[in-house]
């Protein structure tokens, strides 16, 4: 037991002779234009990585400002209007410009073709177009921000957004509309690639679970996002021309907007979390040296989450005056989503059982994910039950709930994935001890930030206010202190990952001794990924196959 801790499976080539491969996707071509006009899925992934990191830190800055304002009960830092803009911009940027594209557009883009044994995604130009749409959407949002922001909240709820606010609603909505098409095209590309581009022998049940979870998330992107698009178009039309579709004085129904909005935006949380679950499956398997327990169940649970995800949207509207009978049905369906989610958590736990576990940084983040996502998921069941929801909705409880899922879950998974595949993407290792420190810092900071918010919400502190009764101050100070620690935890990777680009140890093909096809090729990969089309002749996560393969293999790099 105790000997397992501290042991690692890291197998780096002899650093005195190790060299990066002469020819790879990074040095294949030079110049800015070769990046901006590329069709290579790996380069597009890097473009996405840079842009979402940019938006993550903008969104994070707003989070910092929110927590700073909430340090004291009095409204002393900013006016209430400005505060409204803070949390609106925080939500809009983090959800539409960071979380939705986070894992799929970076890691998914980079890895899915390689994991399937393909040379590229099915439509490289559409892939590039999707990045440009994302950037245009981001620019619209930044424009709205610079012009004075928007204060609808990220939900654009009518009639607030259509009749009462005089901020830059249409500019922001345009940005999200455009960025939505980036997401649609990414999903479309993934689905076609997974159906049509698998290499010989790569059957559906030999695909890595990372690919399965992206398949499920892509279905949601393709089916859900257009509904958000039309909802935003209708808001823009209502604001501009007063057409009446959401205006009760003309017979329109504001609730219709919420139905359309949440029909996308609930599945959207699964768009955000499912790719993260794919990362966790890969990481847990690699660092326990075991095939994922119940592969088929985990694969199908992704699809089940996607399917159920489309039939629970009304739980965002329980207190908005929907019919009691439909609320009952939606409450039951909401509980059902817990089943496939629990299947995943239990299967990961059983994967760990009797595995040869090592504690590299990605694994630490993955452990963080499992614990925090479980708490986030279970509190979701609280909110799905009708009676509890009336008490807890629109309080800090709900804020804590979705931050546990989105930040504790998805962001942990994103960082796990970035660390896990960093050697593959760049050819170099990140500094292990520093990154472990960052992982632990993030975990501590996260819990300190959001655990008090559960209590605050249960005690009745409403969300979206910039002042609160003085008795809530202790918990709010804890939360703000935690946010500071969390901020440090997120700054660290930015610094040492940047450092590692030049000074990190050369990683070699397969530093983790993982089984995926992506680890059997050079790091960083060739532009065409494979020298010749691979043939998949074993199951996914087959460590015996890997052991046989590497037994007589001399690892040379350079």
């Amino acid at each position, binding site marked *: 037991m105790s000997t397992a801790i501290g042991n690692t499976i890291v197998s780096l080539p002899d650093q005195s002779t190790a060299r990066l491969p002469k020819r790879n996707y990074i040095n*294949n*071509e030079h110049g800015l*234009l*070769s990046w901006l*006009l*590329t*069709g*290579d899925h790996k380069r597009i992934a890097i473009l996405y990585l840079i842009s979402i990191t940019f938006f993550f830190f903008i969104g994070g800055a707003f989070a910092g400002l929110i927590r700073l304002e909430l340090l004291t009960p009095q409204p002393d830092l900013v006016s209430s209007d400005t505060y409204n803009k803070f949390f609106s911009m925080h939500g809009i940027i983090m959800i539409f410009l960071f979380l939705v594209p986070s894992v799929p557009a970076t890691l998914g883009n980079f890895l899915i073709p390689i994991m399937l044994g*393909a*040379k*590229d995604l*099915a*439509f*490289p*130009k*559409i892939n590039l*177009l999707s990045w440009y749409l994302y950037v245009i959407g981001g620019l619209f949002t930044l424009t709205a921000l610079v012009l004075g922001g928007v204060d609808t909240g990220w939900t654009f709820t009518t009639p607030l957004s259509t009749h009462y606010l005089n901020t830059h609603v249409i500019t922001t909505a345009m940005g999200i509309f455009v960025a939505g098409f980036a997401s*649609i095209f990414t999903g*479309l*590309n993934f*689905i*076609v*690639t997974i*159906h*049509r*581009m698998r290499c010989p022998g790569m059957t559906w049940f030999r695909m890595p679970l990372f690919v399965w979870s992206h398949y499920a998330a892509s279905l949601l992107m*393709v*089916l*859900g*996002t*257009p*509904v958000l*698009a*039309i*909802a935003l178009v*209708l808001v823009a*039309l209502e604001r501009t*021309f*007063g*057409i*009446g*579709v959401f205006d009760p004085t*003309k*017979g*329109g*129904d504001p609730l*219709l907007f919420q*139905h*359309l909005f949440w029909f996308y935006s609930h599945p959207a949380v699964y768009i955000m979390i499912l790719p993260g679950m794919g990362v966790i499956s890969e990481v847990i398997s690699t660092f326990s040296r075991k095939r994922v327990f119940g592969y088929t169940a985990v694969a199908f649970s992704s699809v089940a989450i996607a399917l159920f995800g489309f039939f629970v949207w009304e739980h965002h509207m329980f207190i908005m005056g929907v019919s009691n009978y439909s609320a009952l049905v939606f409450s039951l369906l909401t509980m059902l989503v817990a089943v496939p989610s629990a299947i995943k958590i239990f299967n990961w736990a059983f994967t760990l059982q009797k595995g040869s576990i090592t504690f590299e940084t990605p694994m630490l983040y993955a452990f963080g994910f499992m614990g925090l996502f479980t708490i986030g998921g279970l509190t979701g069941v609280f909110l799905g039950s009708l009676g509890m929801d009336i008490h807890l909705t629109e309080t800090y409880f709900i804020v804590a709930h979705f931050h546990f899922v989105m930040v504790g879950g998805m962001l942990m998974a994103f960082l796990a994935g970035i660390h896990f595949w960093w050697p593959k993407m760049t050819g170099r290792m990140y500094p292990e001890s520093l990154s472990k420190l960052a992982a632990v810092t993030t975990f501590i900071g996260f819990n300190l930030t959001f655990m008090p918010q559960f209590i605050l919400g249960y005690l009745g502190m409403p969300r979206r206010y910039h002042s609160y009764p003085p008795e809530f101050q202790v918990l709010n100070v804890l939360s703000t202190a935690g946010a500071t620690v969390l901020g440090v935890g997120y700054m660290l990777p930015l610094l040492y990952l940047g450092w590692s680009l030049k000074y990190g140890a050369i990683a070699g093909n397969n530093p983790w001794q993982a089984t995926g096809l992506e680890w059997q090729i050079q790091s960083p990969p060739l*532009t*065409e990924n494979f*020298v*010749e*089309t691979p043939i998949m002749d074993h199951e996914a996560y087959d460590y015996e196959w890997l052991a046989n393969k590497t037994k007589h293999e001399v690892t040379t790099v350079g």
Partner: protein
Amino acid sequence: MDNAITSTGMTTDPTLYPPYTPAVHEEHEHAVLPQHRHHFETEEQQREAGSFGMWLFLLTEIMFFGGMFFAYLLYRNWYYEAFVVASNQLSVPLGAVNTAILITSGFCMALGVWAAEVRQKGLLVVMLLLTTFFGFIFLGVKADEYHEKYEKHHIPGASFSTAMFVNPAAYGLKEDPLSPDMAQKTQIFFFLYFAMTGMHALHMIIGIGILAWLTLRAHRGDFTSGYVAPIENFGLYWHFVDIVWIFLFPLLYLINRHPLK
């Protein structure tokens, strides 16, 4: 859509890739098409991927229009009388003629796909031009109908007038007058009418733009040497736009003919 499938101009230098060996196609006799993209193993795979991608894109379009159909369903149930009276203001003959024109346009498109498959360049170009022509006729009729709504103050917004529905006799209509409250709801109908037919027309305008480009390329002979994927995929798109109209026509124009009335 088509752009990504058809163009050969990759930014990465194609000479860097190992030369494509047509292992599968050696048994067949045709040469590798110049439009074959390096990252597909076979042309068959490329063609299937393109067509599958197009179907998925149409699925997203269905969801996009679905939002408006859902709004229609809701408001038609709530404000049925207003919807009937407002729908009577639409011209059934014009709508019916337009339906026929659009189906003809779709038929020409289908013939165009066939012409590309049997490699008849002249016929393909003629069919694409005819498809475009009927598309323009449809849009012309639609514009005429919009203009009539403008004259009658039936465009939702500040200038919208319910006078015709509150006091139909003054306009020489034989309808029963609506209460002022219900008459307000006709605006919802006209909003849906403009949003749905407008979004449909927008798709046609985009389609006509792509048609012009396809016609030029067809004239150059791009699609009559065995490479028909762009024509096929555009055909799918055009038929989808037709089908949307097949739903819009009865839902908007023929409410009065509904048996439950």
